[in-house]
């Protein structure tokens, strides 16, 4: 056994857009242990549920995270609607699913750019984010916001997408899908990318399940687990199967996310084809009384919302279990016995979102 050295990784680190700290215990160049610590950006958003009324909390919930913001708003509204037994109109559900999939595309493209930056492929990083700008423009055109959509409310959606806008949206998405191939082919086929990702940070399916991995992390290890299969919103109406890869390494996690980008394009097309004219929301009156767990699939994995209402305009308890929190124990497991140089790539492939984790 060589001498042990502790290298601090984060909270400020070039590959980390948000602060998480890892103490990397090294023996020569090999990591033997990683000790994570979080708590740099806790904002106490769950506690705000006691001050803001249930309708205002939808805006607060969206601000838990700047990347998967729409799903946070949608999950909160889904949980409250279940407690208050509100039936959201069909068109409201389809609009939510379209925005949720658009948010997945923009999140995965953002992540693809960060990963490319993480292994030093600057051009690929810029091209990924250039494509992401186009999806952000479409989001702004349909919701009014770029990263904070603000289009989901208790009882349905706050905005409708007119038929002419929808036609333009589908046309632009088809063109974007074509252009995405240039970058995704590089991720999947380029030998330099494969050198940094193939066989790096492998996690076996059993370990992934035992350590509670969720989302693309779990699916890359061969476990077909996707909360969209549980049937929230109107996902059962769509033709959908979780995307699974077998290897469980960084390349497999990249492949899952790359294929999910194209799956999202397909799901948006299916939603647009099935949407019928009609109301997008229902009037909500009264206050929630009771509790509910809602499980949704964010771009990063399964997210759980717990709401407990006591018949007043404020919730008694609001709790969010976010995917990155679930993915930290598998990350610590993966970081054992790898080279120090591979740490940034492995940390990035869990798609860490620390704002979600700490709220």
């Amino acid at each position: 056994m060589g001498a042990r050295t502790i290298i601090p990784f984060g909270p400020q680190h070039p590959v980390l857009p948000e602060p998480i700290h890892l103490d990397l215990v090294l023996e020569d160049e090999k990591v033997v242990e990683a000790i994570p610590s979080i708590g740099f950006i806790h904002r106490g958003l769950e506690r705000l549920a006691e001050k803001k009324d249930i309708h205002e909390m939808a805006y607060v919930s969206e601000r838990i995270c700047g990347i998967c913001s729409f799903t946070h708003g949608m999950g909160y509204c889904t949980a409250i609607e279940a407690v208050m037994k509100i039936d959201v109109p069909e068109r409201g559900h389809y609009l939510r699913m379209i925005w949720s999939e658009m948010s997945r595309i923009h999140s995965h493209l953002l992540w693809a750019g960060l990963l490319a930056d993480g292994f030093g492929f600057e051009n690929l990083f810029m091209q990924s984010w250039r494509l992401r700008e186009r999806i952000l423009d479409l989001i702004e055109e349909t919701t009014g916001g770029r990263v904070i959509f603000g289009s989901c409310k208790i009882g349905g959606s706050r905005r409708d997408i007119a038929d002419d806008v929808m036609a333009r949206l589908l046309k632009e998405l088809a063109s974007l899908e074509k252009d995405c191939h240039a970058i995704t082919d590089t991720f999947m086929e380029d030998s330099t990318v494969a050198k940094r990702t193939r066989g790096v940070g492998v996690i076996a399916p059993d370990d992934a399940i035992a350590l509670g991995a969720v989302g693309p992390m779990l699916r890359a290890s061969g476990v077909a687990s996707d909360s969209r299969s549980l049937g929230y919103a109107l996902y059962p109406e769509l033709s959908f199967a979780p995307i699974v890869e077998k290897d469980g390494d960084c390349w497999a996690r990249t492949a899952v996310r790359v294929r999910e980008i194209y799956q999202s394009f397909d799901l948006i097309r299916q939603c647009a084809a099935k949407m019928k004219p009609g109301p997008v929301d229902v009037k909500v009156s009264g206050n929630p009384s009771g509790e509910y767990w809602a499980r949704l699939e964010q771009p990063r994995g399964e997210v759980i919302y717990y709401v407990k209402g006591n018949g007043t305009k404020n919730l008694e308890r609001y709790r969010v279990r976010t995917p990155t929190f679930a993915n930290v124990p598998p990350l610590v497991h993966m970081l054992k016995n790898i080279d120090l140089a591979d740490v940034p790539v492995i940390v990035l492939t869990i798609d860490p979102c620390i704002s979600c984790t700490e709220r």
Partner: protein
Amino acid sequence: MGLGKLSFTALKGVFSKPATRRYPFEARPPIAKSRGRIHFDDGKCTYCSLCELKCPPDAIKVDRQGRVFAIDHLLCILCGACVEACQKGSLSMDAKHGEPWTEKQKLSWHTEAPPKPSGDAAPKA
């Protein structure tokens, strides 16, 4: 990447238009229905304070007696809840995002109450 594909990509890069816009000389036109800055029309407002009630970050303060409407644009989260709540159409949203604020300030408007109908008006028939 083969030499042919490499040369094609390089030549394409030389002859194609730049991917970026020459900002600030060439600004992107605002996207319609984007949620930009809140506009207040004091001519239409009845100072009912519904907007204050609906504002999630409490950026709007309305004094019903004094007929004062005040908004702190730095607190505003541009959600549009006040515009939806306004019954008189005195609040609207601009598609532009507006200039950055250089100092903290709270903008307020005050209008005098319309004259009350005088008591010696002609009695109803």
